[in-house]
């Protein structure tokens, strides 16, 4: 039986360095939440506090309604998979998987069936007698997962378990982790720095930056409605334009854009995704004139950098287009936008 996880007002200092600043995170029972952020943002520290491997300087951790602060890591109903598989090198695969049950005093002869079931689950049947050194990175991580799941923990904690694997294997493994999660319906916290991974696997994402929980929401919200410029930037939004909002019209350096908001703000950031803009040879409603500066390939598409034509020089805008589009440097073009795709950030950065 799984339970939800709540981190309430968590603060953590290492000496004078404040690595977690008043984190509040509520994970529902059976939910998979990714803690996403760049290196050093405090995501692993938060996970280790939930696990009990670190103690918070202040704040509480709950599993369901049960306060965990004074419960040691050995006694918390968790299982954790780390960046490296960390299989015990002196044990066989079967002994590794059975480790937690043997530590509880269960007899070896009673465990064979359960170990075999776990090996079936992680698609490694017949690997019982192998040694950790004989396995590939992906296989080792599967064994590590099996070793965690055999305890039937309430909460599964995954600390960048895929980052040591190569790209193809990562995609395969993240699908596998999601399947396992859906099978066991276990509350899962998944730490990653890879936004694609977080988007693919999560029910919700908790985005952290410099020890602050910047945004918590469903994956789509991070693309379509970032709550701060930091989030927008992390999720690849190239156009974060800071300007004014007057009766629903966003203005910046001679550029005026229609939006669906009917507000007035002296300072606001318009987040417009480059793939939501398109190039046009003729001016149409909801478009503005610009000049192509240069472009670069991004995968199978092209990112075009343009300067908006306005008195005194307009802002720079990025447009992502099909790679077969005919482009020429310094050409005057029109950039078409959709008012409903302009997301206005009025909180945090803009206040």
């Amino acid at each position, binding site marked *: 039986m799984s339970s939800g996880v709540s981190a309430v007002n968590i603060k953590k200092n290492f000496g004078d360095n404040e690595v977690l600043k008043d984190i509040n995170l509520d994970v529902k029972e059976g939910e998979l939440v990714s803690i996403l952020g760049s290196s050093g943002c405090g995501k692993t520290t938060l996970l280790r506090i939930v*696990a009990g*491997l670190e103690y918070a300087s202040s704040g509480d951790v709950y599993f369901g309604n049960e306060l965990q602060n004074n419960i040691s*890591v*050995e*006694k918390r109903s*968790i*299982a*954790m998979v*780390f960046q*490296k598989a*960390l299989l*015990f*090198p*002196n*044990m066989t695969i079967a002994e590794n998987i059975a*480790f*937690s049950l043997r*530590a*509880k005093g269960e007899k070896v002869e009673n465990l064979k069936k359960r170990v075999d079931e776990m090996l079936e689950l992680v698609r490694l049947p017949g690997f019982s007698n192998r040694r950790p*050194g004989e396995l590939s990175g992906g296989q080792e991580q599967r064994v590590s997962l099996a*070793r*965690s799941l055999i*305890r039937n923990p309430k909460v599964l*904690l995954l600390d960048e378990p895929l980052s040591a694997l190569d790209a193809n294997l990562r995609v395969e493994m993240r699908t596998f982790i999601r399947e396992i999660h859906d099978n066991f319906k276990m509350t899962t916290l998944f730490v990653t720095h890879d936004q694609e991974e977080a988007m693919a696997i999560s029910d919700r994402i908790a985005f952290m930056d410099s020890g602050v929980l910047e945004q918590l929401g469903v994956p789509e919200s991070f693309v379509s409605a970032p709550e701060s410029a930091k989030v927008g930037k992390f999720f690849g939004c190239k156009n974060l334009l800071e300007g004014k909002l007057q009766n629903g019209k966003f203005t910046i350096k001679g550029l005026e854009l229609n939006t669906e908001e009917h507000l007035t703000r002296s300072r606001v950031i318009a987040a417009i995704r480059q793939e939501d803009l398109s190039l046009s040879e003729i001016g149409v409603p909801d478009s503005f004139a610009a000049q192509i500066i240069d472009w670069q390939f991004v995968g199978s598409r092209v990112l075009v950098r343009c300067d908006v034509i306005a008195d005194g020089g307009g802002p720079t805008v990025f447009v992502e287009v099909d790679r077969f589009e005919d482009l020429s440097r310094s050409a005057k073009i029109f950039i078409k936008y959709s008012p409903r795709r302009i997301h206005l950030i009025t909180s945090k950065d803009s206040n």
Partner: protein
Amino acid sequence: MGVETKRATPTTFPVREKRIRVLWLILPTLLVLGILFLGGFFFGVLQSFGLFSVVVDDSSGVSLDAYRAALASEKVRAGLALTFRIAVLATVLSTIIALILAISISRTKRFQKLIISLTQFNIPIPHVVAATAILLTFSQSGIISRVSNAIGLTEGTSDFPIITNDPSGFGILLSFLWKEIPFMCILILGALRGPVTALDETAKTLGASYSYRLRKVIIPYIFPSILSGTIIVFAFTFGSFEVPFILGQPYPPMLSVATYEFYTDRDLVNRPIAMALATLTSLSIAFLVLIYMRVTRRETRKK
């Protein structure tokens, strides 16, 4: 017209040239080692086979007489038994005590650096100084004996128990333990700070108690480091000369002291016996070093 520029390429040496360069660089050390140690050892081996003898006519060729005489000697047999006993005891006790100490230190959160400094302070002190200090402290004419006499605990210094220069080699053992426990402790502490900490954390998250983790994860993982340390300690205590020379009793002497006595004997006929004993000791230690190298290589490969 553009100016043609020549791009500088980094200087590279072929492998053979590199090897010759390295050989030149280590030549001074090789010469000192070669002449003083290997040369001496080689000459000693030849003497142990009855060659280059100062008194015996060696025209009859290679002889194993010195080895036979050495192994037949009661003094050598008794000395070998004593040496073996002290080396094994020093190795086992220092390993066990150091392991307990290192584990306790690694679990201590407060004043850990201070405790480590206190336990390691005697590492740079030479064995000869340690042996002399133990002699001055624990002998019948030593500080403790005099203090106990002064405060009336004993009647005269001869009433004080014989701790040094005793038949059981207790003083020698004490000196070895005083030096080898910190050495083993620093070795084990180093191993405890390595990748085993991550394995220990993993075992914690799997619900294992400390004693279970210690038995099943920590000690098996650091065992190769412990083993290599015990081999070093055994090899050292087995071949050590200065400590048994200062703290040992005249009979039976430890093997190194017996070797010295045969070498400095007025009867020069005994010199090949000394060389035979030195050769046997060196070969035994070389064998242990070989095991040590194999263990460390296996450990490196595994990690």
